[in-house]
């Protein structure tokens, strides 16, 4: 959590002389104190990641007799488990889970950030009983996801509180309806689209910087890729033989509400700290220049909040990618309409005894979370070094 606030401190000067000090007793003590945790982290984090990676490349669990044996015989089968997950006939649930996670992450982050910002701006108006409201909004964060999930499951029961209150009959946690559906066979097309957009963006930058060579190369690559995507990437039967639609399950709405309820207080606290950190001088200057209060937020404060938004996105993003307990408590492990990869990993490993496939799912999860965390760590470390 400490990382989250780092960007605010980015202007603090870092001591540069540290590395030039001679080897003294302090440094030896420091090293001695660090070594045990480095070894433990090395074994229990990185060693076990390696173990999981190896497991995911074996056939552990394909033969029920070997699955739970004292010394199971594992056979190396390469990336077969991953290939099954992404293209196999029986693993459509995994692909739906990936789609669900992406939608869940999107709505969860947008919801938490939006609600947090609104609450922070409201509290910034110095209302009466500000500290009371601050505590009130921050309070849900002190609960665990299991508690939040249990409470919201009761509220969202088909005959329960929410439906009674609103007079609706919506199946909050068991609806089978989907929106934003798309065909899994179009995945190559969407991938090509995204990558070519990146190329076009590079080309645009090159155009602005007047670098003709780069402009031509980037634009041409983007165009070729896009054309390839349109011609070969749609309904790609070489990826998956049967059309398979996935989309956003409406049953997730209830879970998103609960998750936003839980985490909006946290983003509010971040934003409030950020807003309060904006020097009064800047606001005064803006007022003198004739800004209205709304324009002060628009033109002065919100741009200064960008680094906070970024770190909030990182924190919320990795929470949502690996979410397990909230969904387990709210909808149970068995409902595919509200399934996420972490739950599927649990079911695959500990119910079907397919440990290798479970390990493969965890590796996919690890890569997804790493994709969010690593760029952030990289930039923040680079900033520290400067």
């Amino acid at each position, binding site marked *: 959590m400490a990382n989250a606030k780092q960007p605010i401190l980015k202007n603090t000067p870092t001591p540069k002389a540290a590395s030039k000090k001679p080897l003294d007793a302090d440094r030896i003590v420091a090293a001695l104190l660090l070594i045990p945790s480095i070894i433990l982290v090395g074994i229990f984090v990185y060693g076990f990641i390696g173990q999981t990676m190896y497991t995911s490349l074996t056939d552990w*669990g*394909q*033969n*029920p*007799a*070997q*699955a*739970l*044996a*004292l010394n199971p015989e594992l056979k190396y089968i390469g990336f077969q488990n991953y290939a099954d997950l992404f293209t196999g*006939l*029986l693993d*459509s*649930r995994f692909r739906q889970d990936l789609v669900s996670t992406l939608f869940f992450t999107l709505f969860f982050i947008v919801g938490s950030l939006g609600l947090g910002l609104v609450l922070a701006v409201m509290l910034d108006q110095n209302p009466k009983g500000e500290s009371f409201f601050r505590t009130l909004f921050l309070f849900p964060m002190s609960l665990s996801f299991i508690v939040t999930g249990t409470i919201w499951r009761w509220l969202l*029961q*088909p*005959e329960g509180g929410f439906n009674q209150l609103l007079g609706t009959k919506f*199946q909050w*946690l*068991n609806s*089978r309806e989907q929106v934003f559906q798309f065909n899994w066979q179009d995945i190559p097309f969407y991938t090509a689209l995204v990558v070519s957009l990146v190329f076009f963006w590079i080309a645009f930058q090159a155009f602005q910087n007047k670098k003709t060579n780069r402009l031509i190369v980037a634009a041409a690559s983007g165009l070729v890729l896009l054309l390839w995507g349109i011609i070969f990437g749609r309904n790609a039967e070489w990826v998956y033989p049967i059309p398979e639609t996935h989309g956003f399950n409406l049953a997730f709405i209830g879970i998103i509400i609960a998750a936003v309820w839980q985490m909006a207080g946290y983003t509010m606290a971040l934003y409030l700290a950020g807003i309060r950190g904006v020097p009064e001088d800047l606001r005064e200057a803006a007022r003198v220049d004739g800004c209205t209060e709304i324009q002060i937020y628009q033109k002065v404060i919100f741009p200064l909040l960008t680094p906070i938004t970024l770190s909030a996105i990182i924190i919320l993003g990795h929470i949502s990618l690996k979410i397990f307990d909230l969904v387990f408590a709210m*909808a*149970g*492990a*068995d*409902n*595919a*309409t509200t399934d996420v990869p972490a739950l599927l990993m*649990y*079911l695959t490993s*500990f*119910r*079907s*005894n*397919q440990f290798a496939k479970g390990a493969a799912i965890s590796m996919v999860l690890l890569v997804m979370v790493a994709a969010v965390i690593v760029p952030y760590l990289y930039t923040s470390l680079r900033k520290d070094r400067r």
Partner: protein
Amino acid sequence: MKKVLAAVTVSLLAASAAAQSKQLEIFSWWAGDEGPALEALVKLYKAKYPSVDVQNATVTGGSGVNARAVLKTRMLGGDPPDSFQVHAGQELTGTWVAAGRMDDLSALYKEQGWSKVFPKGLMDLISTNGKPWVVPVNVHRSNVMWYNPAKLREWGITPPKTWDQFFTVCKTLQAKGVTPLVVGENWTQQHLWESVALGTLGPADYNNLWNRKLKFNSPKAIKVWENFGKVLNCTNKDASGLSWQQAVDRVVDGEAAFNIMGDWAAGYLSTTKGLEAGTGFGYVPSPGTGGSFIMLADAFGLPKGVKNRTEVLNWLRLLGSKAGQDAFNPLKGSISARNDSDLSKYSKYSQSAAKDFRTNKIVGSLVHGAAANETFMSNFATVMEIYLSTKSASKAANAAEAIATQSNLGK
């Protein structure tokens, strides 16, 4: 992660307790309404062996869905519970026995003369190559349809005997705004499926599904999914939010006409709800399954490498004894696995079930671990999802066939 931590803590506590006195840890999923039955057994055990500290390690969750996951982490982590509950049949033989994790109980069976008192069909189910692996505590029936007799009279219907009759009754009831058949969360839907399968295929072809003589994507088996779809059209829409008890409650309250559930519902109805069998609640075999008995049994075994072997053997002796079975089963709502049980101790419902058990054709339950190994059982949930989201009988049937091949079903 939390579960692993919990298991580690439990085992640490257990280790420290072991230093003080002899102890026995009983691992089961009998909580809530099924708890009193287990308590009765533990009480008997304590009366006989007062120096033993009995630990009740219960993991809640219907049909053992959570308990099995915890059990696996403990077994793989080298900390087996002294004795754990398991469904007799493929769930045991196809999983733990195949993995070489259980001790053979032949000597105990010989000592107690149990092979004479347990019926042959049951002995076949719990043995491989003539060696028994577990002591069955009870026998349950899965294909029972429950109803509220007073309400049925009010609506002017009688319990249907076939699925076709059921569909007619379904229309009548839906016109009155009553849910014809109430189902609950995921596993109870699979429970319903096995009743539909038996009712559609008959006992011979039903068994052929599990020994792979009948393919899951054969026209006969596809018909099961088609019927299942029609049955689902007669059910409540909020199924996945209901536990099996809540589903039974709807029948009691008169919001729904029928519920298909195993006969632990009889224990719930009479013990918890205080209703009288025959008048307070009614029961018939689920449509199309008259004369057949989908059986499941809970059992306990002896894992290899347990710390308290003598205590476990004493526990197993008690489980298999007439006194133990007759203390446990009337409270659990099940019937004794022994031929010589004292039927006068049992409820009116259980007496009729015991009679059926001795005369009907016995087949194994899928969702309760008798018919198929754990890998197939667990993946069958995926098949169910494929059906529920596509409503395509052939897609579900093909998926079931693929999973059956993948999980070495019937071998």
